[in-house]
């Protein structure tokens, strides 16, 4: 029984740091190129990748109990619901001529 905690190697933690730094420089370089409407999705894709690296490997969600994994995912799920429902409201208001828009 007792503790079977995951102990990462130092090398693996430095590798995560390296990947995060490479992605940071990448997102700055890409922002200098005009991709029109694609700039935002590309920047967000890089940011989500970085966040996943931190969540899974630095915060060790990858090695955490299932209940913790579900809880962490739920937080971001509800954040997504907030954005989705709010934006579908705002984006569709001028389609049907609602007063106040």
């Amino acid at each position, binding site marked *: *029984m*007792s*503790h079977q*905690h995951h*102990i*990462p190697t*130092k090398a693996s*933690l*430095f590798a*995560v*740091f390296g990947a*995060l*730094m490479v992605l*940071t*420089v990448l*997102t*700055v370089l890409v*922002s200098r190129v005009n991709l029109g409407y694609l*700039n*935002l999705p590309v*920047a*967000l894709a*890089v*940011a989500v990748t*970085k*966040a996943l690296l*931190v*969540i899974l*490997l*630095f*915060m*060790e969600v990858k090695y*955490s*109990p299932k*209940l*913790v994994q579900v*809880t*962490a995912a*739920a*937080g*971001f799920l*509800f*954040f997504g619901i*907030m*954005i989705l429902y*709010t*934006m579908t409201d*705002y*984006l569709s208001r001028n389609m049907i001529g609602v007063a106040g828009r």
Partner: protein
Amino acid sequence: MANGSHAHAAHHPMLQHHFDTLEQQQNASLLGMWMFLVTEVLFFGGLFMAYILYRWLYNASFHEASHELNVWLGLFNTAVLIGSSLTMALAVRASKTGEKSQLVLFLILTLVLGGIFLGVKVVEYAEKFTHHLVPGEHFAFHDAALKDGAQIYFSLYFAMTGLHATHMILGGLVLLPIIVMAQRGWFSPEWYTPIELFGLYWHFVDIVWIFLFPLLYLM
């Protein structure tokens, strides 16, 4: 329970009576911390929601206003904060392997890097004041047609980076006693829950910045 007689004989001083084992206790703490972080996701989430909406409504203003920020200071601070996440992860590792001097060293490094981040933030904020970019009576923007949107942008800039900086200041204040506890040998590979939970908080604050940097500096 499974290690019955042994657990009873060597009762760990940090094991509270309503838990069977240290592992069960630690898992409960871990879940509680994540519940708190979920509320934090939604706390910051409200501001991100506002950013998304106003960016959609005032796209040109936001684009122009974001050029007022110093990308290099932002990039430097991103590197500093990711570096502090690395030292924090190394501190959690050291607490698991029982390397006390390394644990103290990495916790102090985390605090120092957090301090550097806040120092750069002070420089950036001061710049906004001298350039009349603080929302309010004295707000000035080079393009009058984009001024209203630019003011909303800077309102969100100060609200989001301000809430983030507040989290870092509070984190630093919590880190101080943890460093003292580590120095005095409170933590062992059997019990290091405060280190682990503080690490989760610190990494969460890092994640917020990972999104703030591109949205505020690079768009």
